[in-house]
């Protein structure tokens, strides 16, 4: 069995990132777009941890970036879901095509 190097982990995080981008571009439901953003943030976290583990193991900067990104993602999800619920109460729809009065 071959050794799994950092390149394979980076391929995996690339795939995860662009699956998230595809979801963000095709979906028009706000909650599923939020899920796609979570996928993108997760791929960035994998990159930070892999670089810290394999290339610069003498300090812990990547781990701290990952922990802070997870904290910010939690805050972002909470605020986004509050906004989505507020929009649903006013418009009875969470499709982005139906909520465009702030467009112009």
């Amino acid at each position, binding site marked *: 069995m071959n050794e799994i*190097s950092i*390149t394979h*982990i*980076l*391929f*995996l995080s*690339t*795939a995860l*990132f*662009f*699956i998230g*981008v*595809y*979801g963000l*571009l*095709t*979906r*028009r*439901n706000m*909650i*599923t777009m*939020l*899920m796609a953003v*979570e*996928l993108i943030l*997760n791929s960035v*976290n*994998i990159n930070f*941890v*892999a670089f810290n*583990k*394999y*290339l*610069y*193991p003498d300090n*812990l900067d990547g*781990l*701290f970036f*990952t*922990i*802070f990104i*997870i*904290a*910010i*993602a*939690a*805050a*972002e*999800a*909470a*605020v986004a*879901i*509050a906004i*989505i*619920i*507020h929009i*649903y*109460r*006013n418009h009875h729809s*969470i499709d982005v095509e139906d909520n465009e009065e702030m467009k112009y």
Partner: protein
Amino acid sequence: MTTTKIFRAAIFLLFTLIGVAGLYFWMQIEFVAAVQIIVYVGGIVVLIIFSIFLTQQSGLEMPKATLQRKIFSCIAAICGAGLTGLLISQYGFTNNPDAVLDDSVQNIGTQMLDYEDVGFALPFEVISILLLAAMIGAIVIAMKSKVEES
């Protein structure tokens, strides 16, 4: 290609996040894996599922994306993935296996609250203020319409 049931999408997201946590376990970064499981699987996915229940019927199917949007998104994602994969495969990372990452919880805690050379005390404080602000903001935004109605 993608599921049209939103609840199923949330469950798939749950298993993806568990898989990422498994990758962290495989890389022997146990603390980040534990934080990933606690915050994402225990927090964000549950929040998303609750908001699905609050905003629409879980059995309701979402409308499918148009074929044109699917094609152009697929082209964009594949081009980006191909370019990034090409760059990664040609860069030639050199592993540094002799040094060992000291990711014990004691070391992480000491560095996080350290204000000396390698410390992260200032980002820690900023994150705590950000979390407080996000919590207050979420409560205020979600309460607003109820106040207006009554």
